[in-house]
């Protein structure tokens, strides 16, 4: 006996078909392949196409770097740290806020490239390099900010483990020395990790360039041809890097958190500071990736083919998850201190909630926790690039405030009320503008010199993805290529 059925909703089409229309897998980059040669041309064109707007922004950034970074830093070196706002009780000011902030930004590259590579998250493929570049350029700014904080920067070599005339070695038991070692390891590791997967794309650029670009790519491509042996060595190294850089990434921001947590100060002495800092770093890093992807898509030719709504959607989901984890650690850190009843800590918490910096404290909570919770549940929000970029920007504002609260504000409200004095940054403001400008400048230059899309990884992904017809639907399938 034949069975007939009705659609209760009264819709003309079966619900499954309607659903398929919304999520057509063929809209995904992995199921919408183009010939490799075409993709290569698109990436090369995106590097070569520069409008007057590009040069205008570049010129402004060069000016800002020259004045706010080099001139301001030179002025501070010539006149001493007295031109900065750091003084008792806030000996650690914006320089260290910037250091922590930039290290946080740098975490996105490793997270997206290494962790998602290890877990074979396919959506990562077109934007791993954009994220890895953020790691390297962010760490350069973090390093510069530490050197600014040193003041007498020419004595920085005292931290290096080299024998000197006094045969005095650095004190490796100090958390500040752990910082030096961890950040050095991370800078070198992430730069090498950026370079290795870049080699095949540099070879591609070499094959399609002339003049000075040809020489540039020829030198950097190292003579790569794509032999079986070269691929084998390269992929083995990339696998080792993907696994090894993850604990290094966790160690870096944990050690940065220990700079604070090892001290017996209100607000700092916390056992959850390590994971709390790591989550905070990922939170700001993810937000920064959203901004970069939006800018790439909006300003660079052909990027709308490589960077699609699906990528923003996946990134938005990651941002939401990281935001939840961040909220958990924030509350954990807060409630334990609040419940402890220590008088100095009570003073600090009351000051944060009702003092002159309360606006910063509540903005931090609003941007880092409330905003992602309210918005990123929605698929339409996640799939709207400019909206996700704005959310990413606000998360970064919130995360900057978080670091500002942890460093100069928490140093202000200490156990000696007679020293309480609100920190007021002076030359630090220019140097902060300088580091941001330099980061953007490096990124803009890189966008015209190196392929921001790892074309070979995209092609590899497209080769292993296929659509299988199951009943009336096309089901995405992925096969192992190795």
């Amino acid at each position, binding site marked *: 006996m034949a069975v007939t059925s009705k659609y209760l909703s009264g819709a003309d089409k079966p619900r499954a078909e309607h659903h398929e229309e919304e999520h057509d897998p063929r809209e995904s980059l992995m199921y919408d392949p183009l010939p490799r040669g075409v993709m290569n041309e698109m990436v090369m064109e995106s590097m070569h196409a520069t409008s007057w707007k590009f040069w205008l922004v570049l010129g402004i950034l060069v000016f800002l770097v020259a004045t706010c970074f080099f001139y301001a830093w030179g002025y501070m070196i010539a006149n001493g740290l007295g031109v900065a706002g750091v003084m008792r009780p806030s000996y650690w000011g914006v320089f260290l806020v910037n250091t922590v902030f930039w290290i946080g930004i740098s975490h996105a590259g490793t997270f997206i490239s290494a962790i998602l590579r290890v877990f074979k998250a396919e959506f990562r493929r077109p934007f791993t390099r954009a994220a890895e570049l953020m790691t390297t350029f962010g760490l350069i700014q973090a390093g510069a900010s530490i050197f600014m904080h040193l003041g007498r920067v020419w004595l920085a070599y005292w931290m290096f483990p080299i024998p000197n005339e006094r045969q005095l070695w650095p004190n490796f*038991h100090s958390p500040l020395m752990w910082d030096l070692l961890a950040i050095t390891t991370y800078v070198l590791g992430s730069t090498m990790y950026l370079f290795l997967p870049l080699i095949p794309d540099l070879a591609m650029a070499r094959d399609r360039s002339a003049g000075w670009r040809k020489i540039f790519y020829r030198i950097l491509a190292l003579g790569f041809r794509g032999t079986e042996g070269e691929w*084998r060595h390269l992929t083995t*190294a990339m696998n080792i890097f993907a696994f090894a850089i993850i604990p290094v990434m966790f160690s870096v921001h944990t050690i940065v958190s220990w700079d604070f947590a090892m001290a017996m100060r209100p607000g700092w002495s916390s056992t959850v500071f390590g994971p709390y800092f790591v989550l905070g770093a990922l939170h700001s890093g993810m937000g920064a990736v959203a901004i970069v992807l939006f800018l790439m898509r909006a300003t660079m030719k052909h990027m709308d083919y490589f960077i699609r709504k699906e990528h923003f959607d996946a990134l938005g989901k990651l941002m939401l998850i990281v935001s939840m984890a961040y909220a958990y650690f924030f509350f954990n850190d807060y409630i334990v201190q609040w419940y402890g009843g220590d008088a100095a800590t009570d003073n600090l918490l009351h000051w944060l909630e009702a003092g002159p910096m309360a606006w910063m404290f509540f903005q931090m909570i609003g941007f880092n926790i409330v905003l992602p919770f309210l918005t990123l549940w929605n698929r339409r929000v996640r799939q709207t690039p400019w909206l996700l970029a704005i959310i990413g920007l606000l998360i970064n504002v919130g995360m900057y405030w978080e670091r500002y609260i942890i460093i100069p504000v928490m140093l202000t409200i200490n156990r000696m009320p007679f020293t309480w004095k609100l920190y007021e940054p002076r030359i630090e403001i220019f140097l902060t503008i300088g580091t941001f400008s330099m980061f953007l400048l490096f990124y803009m230059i890189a966008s015209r010199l190196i392929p921001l899309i790892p074309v070979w990884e995209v*092609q590899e992904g497209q080769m292993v993805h296929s659509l299988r017809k199951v009943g009336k639907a096309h089901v995405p399938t992925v096969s192992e290529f190795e």
Partner: protein
Amino acid sequence: MSDTTLLALFEDIDPAANAIEKLHEMGVTDDRISVISGVPISHKMLGRPHPWTNVSRLALGGAVAGFLFGLFLNFGTPFLYGVRVGGQALFPIPPGLILVFEMTMLFALLSTFLGVFLESYFPNYRAMEYVPQVSDGKIGIFFKAPEDEQQKFEDALNQLGAESVKTAEARQL
């Protein structure tokens, strides 16, 4: 009769794998064949021997060296010049673990990176047998064949779908 190196270009993996099988049938051994491609293709797909790499061994060697260097920094340097602080151990274990970990990872990563250079003979700017179409996704098979049998190989590979079969030329990359 001397050998000549031929280059056959293929669009896809399947005909390339068939071509390698055919070359084996025609008496060309694996050590006289090499493959270049724009994406990493598994040796199993092409029916090729597993390419050997020492990168992971070098990484392990680097990790051991880094571990020892970390031990030296943590335990050796205070021994060379001890800075004694009241109530503090001269050779504390917990901070030492951090130091040893960072040095182990740093040396492991450095040696992995250098391993790729050593194993791949990078940088190499000499003239090499290469075709730029490889970075457009084509698969190139280089093989050595007797000069007088060149036509026979060309015909066989063309039948299997080769886009072109020609004498390989070394070129400046």
